């Protein structure tokens, strides 16, 4: 049911939420007159337990250098293009005669050997943009050049549950909401540090703020009741997140950074109804124009370790059959190294898909290192094929409307 006609001021529900709980990055229920949050939550948890497939997207922001990640040591053109920063074969973990993981990706090697990691080669799109903002927007919306206002993860949530009755269907662990999770019907739950995820107030105001947040406007007009409901669900959501985080105890070592995957595991362990999670590196971490080698190899450790740890954690939680993780990056890097011992914005790069339901292996073709587009790789896999695979084969939803087109899926799931 639309809320707009009840507001009487030309405000949309989205506008109102932007100025209220939505502005605080707190999720609200999608219905006009939301029932108590906890009863929604309980129903949603029960439903999630029945068919709760979960997709976790990890954004490697900045443009990950795919060639130094999955190193094509079997191709001399690689070393000709990168005489200084090329990764030697001895510094890789073998996949096959042609390529291997960078040596710092022990976690990915383990996952690959266990058959839980799929490597998709040459992911990109036609007429690539070399701008971080533009290209990332294309990956976020899955609509290169289209100017789409909603993210593909948000549209997936809308397709999975058009009524938006499940609260917190989307969770984005970050300082601000990503375009990728922007949804027409759902309001993503966005938070960074779970311990700080609460309404700011002076200490002396705490009790009064709690009462303000939790008290319903039983009387009053429809707008008052709705906004009171927004406030209640916001307070309930933050309390749930903090409780889930406080209750989360895991023996798994996620390495130095964790990549916010511990928070994801905490919510999964607490039985949140969330089916779509989004986490990202910040500040274009992978934008390695200068002195790439040391920075990049550390970033690969920071990526492989927590992802492998996360896989072990979801197995510990008994949700390994439901959870799949996918990595994206807005572009790869140019094939030749630059004069600053780094690499510049490129085009295609690998995507990784991790999980017990995944048929591990290699998908797509390695892009050619000689048939280039002005020094840039020509993509061999449209990234939307991987998105379509996740949406249709894992989440069991038709991807055509979500991706605004039909993209052939990979046979990536058992």
């Amino acid at each position: 049911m639309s809320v707009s006609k009840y507001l009487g001021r030309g405000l949309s529900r989205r506008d109102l939420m932007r100025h209220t709980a939505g502005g605080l990055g707190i999720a609200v229920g999608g219905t006009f007159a939301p029932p108590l949050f906890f009863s929604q939550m309980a129903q949603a948890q029960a439903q999630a337990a029945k068919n709760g497939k979960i997709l976790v997207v990890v954004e490697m922001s900045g443009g990950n250098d795919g060639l130094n990640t999955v190193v094509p040591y079997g191709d001399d053109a690689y070393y000709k293009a990168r005489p200084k920063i090329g990764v030697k074969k001895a510094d890789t973990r073998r996949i096959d005669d042609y390529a291997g993981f960078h040596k710092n990706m022990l976690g990915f090697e383990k996952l690959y050997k266990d058959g839980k990691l799929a490597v998709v080669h040459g992911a990109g799109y036609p007429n690539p943009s070399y701008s971080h903002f533009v290209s990332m927007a294309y990956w976020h919306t899955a609509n290169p050049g289209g100017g789409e206002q909603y993210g593909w993860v948000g549209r997936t949530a809308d397709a999975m549950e058009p009524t938006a009755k499940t609260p917190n269907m989307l969770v984005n662990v970050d300082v601000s909401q990503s375009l990728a999770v922007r949804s027409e019907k759902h309001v993503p739950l966005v938070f960074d540090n779970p311990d700080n995820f609460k309404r700011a107030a002076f200490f002396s105001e705490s009790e009064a703020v709690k009462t303000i947040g939790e008290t319903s406007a039983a009387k009053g007009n429809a707008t008052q009741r709705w906004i009171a409901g927004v406030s209640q669900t916001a307070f309930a959501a933050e309390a749930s997140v903090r409780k889930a985080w406080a209750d989360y105890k895991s023996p798994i070592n996620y390495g130095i950074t964790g990549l916010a995957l511990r928070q994801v595991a905490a919510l999964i362990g607490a039985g949140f109804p969330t089916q779509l999670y989004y986490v990202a590196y910040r500040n274009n971490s992978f934008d390695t124009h200068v002195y790439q080698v040391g920075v990049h190899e550390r970033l690969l450790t920071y990526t492989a370790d927590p992802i492998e740890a996360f896989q072990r954690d979801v197995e510990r939680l008994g949700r390994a059959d439901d959870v799949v993780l996918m990595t994206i990056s807005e572009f790869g890097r140019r094939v030749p190294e630059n004069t600053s011992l780094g690499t510049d914005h490129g085009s295609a790069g690998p995507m990784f898909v991790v999980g017990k339901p995944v048929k591990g292996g290699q998908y797509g073709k390695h892009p050619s290192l000689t048939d280039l587009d002005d020094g840039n790789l020509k993509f061999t896999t449209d990234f939307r094929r991987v998105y379509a695979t996740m949406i249709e084969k894992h989440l069991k939803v038709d991807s055509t409307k979500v991706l605004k087109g039909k993209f052939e899926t990979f046979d990536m799931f058992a």
Partner: protein
Amino acid sequence: MNMADQVALQEDFNTRTAGAVGFQMAAEKIIPIPRTMPQLNLANGTLAAGLKTTDQAVDYYVRRFVAVPLSPEVRTSLIKFLNGQLGGTSDLAAARSYAEEPLRLLIHLIMSTPEYQLG
């Protein structure tokens, strides 16, 4: 020291120097904007409005700032808050000398209610 390290040192120095010079240039271009804090005296204003007790003050400021009534629970909570801030008394005149900060916090709480946004 090898060539790569020399280049790194030079680049580091150049980057820091450029950053410092850039900051200096930006600072020289700043035009200060005089800012005057609002000269509020809520304690005097509250008493001048003829308000004697904390519940009267809460009702007064809720009517002033919020377009719709607050729930009874929130109203009670605000009164309890103000009483607590005034050291347990509801007598505004008796608490006049130290009531300014509590009243400002009360206004802050009123403006923190969801209903405040329904202007």
